[in-house]
């Protein structure tokens, strides 16, 4: 077991792509750290540098107290689950899982026992004699996890290991991985692009974008106190609503709607005036009695425990997040679909499409961001 420390680690590929940009990060001994971010943000590259599969352009990676920049992978004693499984196609499942043990010279009987144990844990005991080509995607993924688990490495690197499982199996495997981690206490870096997974799994979550760490924090903090508009928009589903606003003497004007700042926020923005971006989580739109923001419901989605109300309002102006515009990303969530906003209501709400409603913004939970840099102000 060991700590893993990145110190100003940068990876630039030969074609000039900077995949990871001066990453500084300390993974504590025995921690389960989540690395999350959109596709292409450098998650895999970061893992591969820890594993020793990718050379480090500049900076330093330490495992324990040893700088491993020039240490060959074999000597790092790290197990990795590859994003695309990388199963050995000519070997059976049992041989695949047992391969690292064979390389370590573990005795046959013991190796067999450990392969069995791993297979039982992953519910693939019945598949041990099969070749990878005769497995479904989810089964392959579990074999890949099994191959990492049989070893007793000083750290696990998992590159989206649950991405191909169906929803139910994924939830089950998440629980398994957590209890396994509790039991073994092996330092783990777990990569995912799924923010829900990140929120449910980690002690600490690292949010990355374009090779740059945006925020390292607990899931709760990421949700309630995102460092910038990227994190705010990336974490949470449906995504946060971003509205154009103006700071003016202890209050923020959102369109024609005026929200008085609570004391904490007021001291945080300390006399600042001018344009800001106002971030409102869907659950932070509350219904008002006629004197709030006039809104027209476009459609509703009933999800059981909650109802999502998508609405449009002439009183509010949407702010396109820069990242979104650049990525041409529109599926993100309905919250940012054109001029539509989204609010989260209780399951018993009677609000329906085409209805007029009146809404207000929860002043305590509203977030303010700098209009140009996107940094959080409160």
């Amino acid at each position: 077991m060991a700590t893993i420390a990145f110190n100003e680690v940068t990876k630039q590929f030969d074609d000039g792509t900077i995949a990871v940009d001066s990453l500084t990060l300390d993974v504590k001994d025995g921690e389960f750290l989540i690395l999350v971010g959109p596709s292409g943000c450098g998650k895999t590259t970061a893992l591969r540098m820890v594993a020793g599969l990718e050379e480090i352009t500049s900076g330093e990676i330490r495992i324990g107290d040893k700088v491993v920049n020039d240490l060959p992978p074999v000597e790092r004693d790290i197990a990795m689950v590859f994003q695309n499984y990388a199963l050995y196609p000519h070997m059976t499942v049992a041989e695949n899982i047992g391969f690292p043990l064979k390389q370590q010279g573990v005795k046959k009987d013991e190796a067999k026992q450990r392969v069995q144990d791993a297979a039982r844990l992953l519910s693939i005991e019945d598949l041990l004699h099969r070749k990878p080509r005769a497995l479904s995607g989810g089964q392959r993924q579990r074999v890949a996890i099994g191959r990492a688990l049989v070893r007793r490495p000083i750290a696990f690197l998992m590159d989206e290991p649950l991405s191909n499982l169906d929803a139910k199996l994924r939830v089950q495997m998440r629980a398994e991985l957590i209890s396994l981690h509790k039991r073994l206490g092996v330092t783990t870096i777990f990569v995912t692009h799924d923010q829900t997974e990140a929120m449910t799994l980690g002690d600490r979550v690292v949010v990355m974008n374009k090779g740059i760490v945006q925020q390292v924090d607990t899931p709760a903090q990421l949700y309630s106190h995102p460092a910038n508009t990227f994190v705010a928009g990336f974490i949470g589903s449906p995504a946060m609503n971003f509205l154009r606003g103006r700071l003016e003497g202890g209050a923020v004007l959102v369109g024609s709607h005026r929200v008085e700042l609570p004391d904490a926020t007021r001291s945080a923005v300390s006399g600042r005036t001018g344009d800001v971006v106002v971030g409102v989580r869907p659950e932070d739109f509350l219904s008002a009695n006629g004197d709030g923001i006039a809104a027209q419901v476009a459609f509703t989605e009933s999800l059981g425990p909650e109802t999502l109300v998508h609405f449009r309002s002439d009183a509010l102006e949407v702010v396109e997040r820069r990242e979104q515009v650049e990525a041409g990303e529109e599926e993100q969530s309905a919250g940012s679909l054109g001029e539509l906003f989204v609010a989260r209501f209780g399951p018993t709400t009677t609000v329906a499409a085409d209805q007029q409603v009146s809404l207000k913004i929860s002043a305590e939970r509203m977030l303010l961001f700098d209009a140009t840099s996107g940094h959080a102000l409160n």
Partner: protein
Amino acid sequence: MVVGDKRRARLLIGVRLALLTVGAVVMIIPFAYMVATSFKQNTLVLQLPPQFIPHHPTTANYHEAWSSNQFGRYFVNSLMVAAATTVLAVLLSSMMAFAFARFQFPGRRLLFGLLLIGLMVPTMMLLIPQFLLARDIGALNSLWGLVFFYTAMNLALNTFLLRSFFQDIPRELEEAMVVDGAGPFARYRQLILPLSRPALATVAIFTFLASWDEFVWALTVINDPSRRTLPIAIALFQGQHSTSWGLVFAASLIAILPVLGIFITFQRQFVSGIASGALKG
């Protein structure tokens, strides 16, 4: 499918079959004639019109071919030389190909370029320099000398073929092995070789054929009659027996048997999609 399409497809298949038949007949007739002749008495060999089914078939040619002139010994010589060459050439060229495909080392491109040049120089041009070399290292008139030079002659093409095959093996598989603690030799033996069986089989067949059939070099360096290989022995039939074609063909057909054996052994390795299931998607 529309009716017209179906008719067109059938027509196309018909044309294809006809062409294939013509090709096959052109290929097979000489061979069939050779087989037929090997079963004929010598006096009937040049009969016109040619007979494809001999009237009085006889196996006399086979008996005579096998028992004359230490034919059995030549057969064994050839077999040993070809087998040893195949094993050595495949082993060495697969290692070289692995190095060229997956390792960065100084002079890599230069060395590979030299190898390719080796492919382009005609064998005949190398005959005399090779002979001098063989003389200096004492490889004349010896079967091991043959193995040595045959191996060298086959390395370039084999390495070239295997390298491109190895390059197509997903890099991630090798990286997974690296992380699992496998060194270069373990990867070569447990990943590259098993995944390349079709390519290795192809290369083995090429090498075996090339060294089994080789004539000019063997004729140049082998003097001792007891160390002759089959191609020389068969050629000698022609002079000595004022070319009794039945005999030559019988000897040639005997010489084909091991080649058939090799084909049948290795063709089982030509399984397609050996690497499927390794990676996502």
